């Protein structure tokens, strides 16, 4: 199973600014003073060793994750990141029909606004099926493409399947389950199991009562997942200030992952107000928290970064 992040930003697309880009270049140049960089190899070695927040960006596209197995192509959410995924699919399939299954967590803008720009959807030879527990997903997506908002309507070839909670959906070699999360107007988590691995996508969720009893349904759903992709938009303090805004933080994510026996934890839905330095600092702090509270743990922590591929 291959998981690729095409968009990891929360709330609204957040392109890198020129000020941020200049700051990255300045920081890199500063570090290069007195470094011998006479060959391309030495330059790429130097770049590779720069702090990650200087040489990379978490990216500005909103939620879109691709999951590929030998037999299936799955897409989680259709934020702005799905536009580039669409271009990549056209390249990869090179004229062969594309058949993909799109699981939607909910219909906040940051999870749907890429759909009108998903070019493979405009070719009726391709097959796209949207899944969610909402009974009116099609109407919601049609609304987004009303003529006042976008010149072309939602492609009529898109299929829609309503999922039932506590029922397992089979797609190819994958079993898919869903669980409601705590988020304004609702959001759903997805658990995807193949024969040998499992991934849980739990974005746009707030956890207010953290007692063992209240957390049990979530811990059960996350149980032994190889990878948990978890909404960590806020800091601990913001989670209290922005009560009922429907997001979580890295510390809650770590504690839940530990209880559920998760192997890898990837934080997603990055706050638009935070730059790369801040986001990687949050990851650093998350790692220190884990080390203090559970030094023997082998749980791996990472940021979901645009372009990152995880193979399970």
């Amino acid at each position, binding site marked *: 199973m291959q998981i690729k992040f095409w968009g990891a930003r929360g709330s609204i697309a957040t392109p890198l600014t020129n000020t941020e880009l200049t700051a990255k270049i300045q920081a890199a140049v500063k570090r290069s003073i007195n470094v011998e960089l006479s060959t391309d190899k030495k330059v790429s070695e130097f770049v590779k060793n720069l702090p990650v927040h200087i040489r990379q960006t978490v990216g500005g596209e909103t939620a879109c994750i691709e999951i590929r197995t030998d037999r299936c192509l799955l897409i989680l959410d259709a934020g702005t990141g799905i536009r580039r995924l669409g271009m990549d699919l056209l390249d990869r399939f090179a004229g062969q029909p594309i058949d993909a299954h799109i699981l939607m967590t909910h219909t906040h803008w940051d999870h749907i606004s890429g759909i009108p720009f998903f070019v493979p959807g405009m070719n009726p030879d391709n097959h796209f099926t949207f899944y969610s527990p909402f009974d009116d997903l099609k109407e919601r997506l049609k609304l987004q493409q009303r003529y006042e908002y976008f010149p072309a309507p939602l492609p009529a070839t898109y299929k829609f399947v309503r999922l039932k909670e506590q029922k397992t959906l089979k797609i190819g070699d994958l079993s898919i389950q869903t669980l409601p999360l705590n988020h304004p107007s609702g959001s759903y988590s997805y658990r995807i199991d193949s024969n040998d691995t499992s991934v849980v996508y739990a974005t746009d969720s707030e956890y207010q009562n953290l*007692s063992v009893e209240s957390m049990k349904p979530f811990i059960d759903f996350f149980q032994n997942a190889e990878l948990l992709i978890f909404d960590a938009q806020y800091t601990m303090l913001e989670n209290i200030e922005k009560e009922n805004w429907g997001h979580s933080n890295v510390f809650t994510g770590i504690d839940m992952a530990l209880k559920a026996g998760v192997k890898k934890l990837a934080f997603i839905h990055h706050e638009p107000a935070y730059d790369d330095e801040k986001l990687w600092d949050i990851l650093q*702090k998350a790692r220190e928290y884990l080390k203090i509270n559970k030094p023997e743990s082998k749980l791996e922590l990472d940021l979901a970064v645009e372009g990152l591929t995880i193979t399970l």
Partner: protein
Amino acid sequence: MKITEQITDNITIINLDGRLDAHTCESVEAFFREKMENGQYKFVMNMENVEFIDSAGLRVVLVVARDLRNKHKGDLHFALLQPAVSRVFEISGLNNVLYIYNNSENAVQGFSS
């Protein structure tokens, strides 16, 4: 989690003994809610015997401190944080919004300064 209390000058000193986590957060919050209903709004939390705090513990002290401040003009001060707990307070940013003292006397004093 063992909780004991003593009241001096209208300030309640609470001594916690145990882990402040998902197993104990509800009883700690309930303890505070009961005190608030009885009109106690100024607290010192003696953390000398708390060796472990997780996100559930962090959340409960933040929520209690917020409600004491916003609804009752009270507060929750902290004393004698163990090194691990102290570092978790720093990492999670709690030390920026909560008053932390090196002993209970200073934490009590903190209410009059």
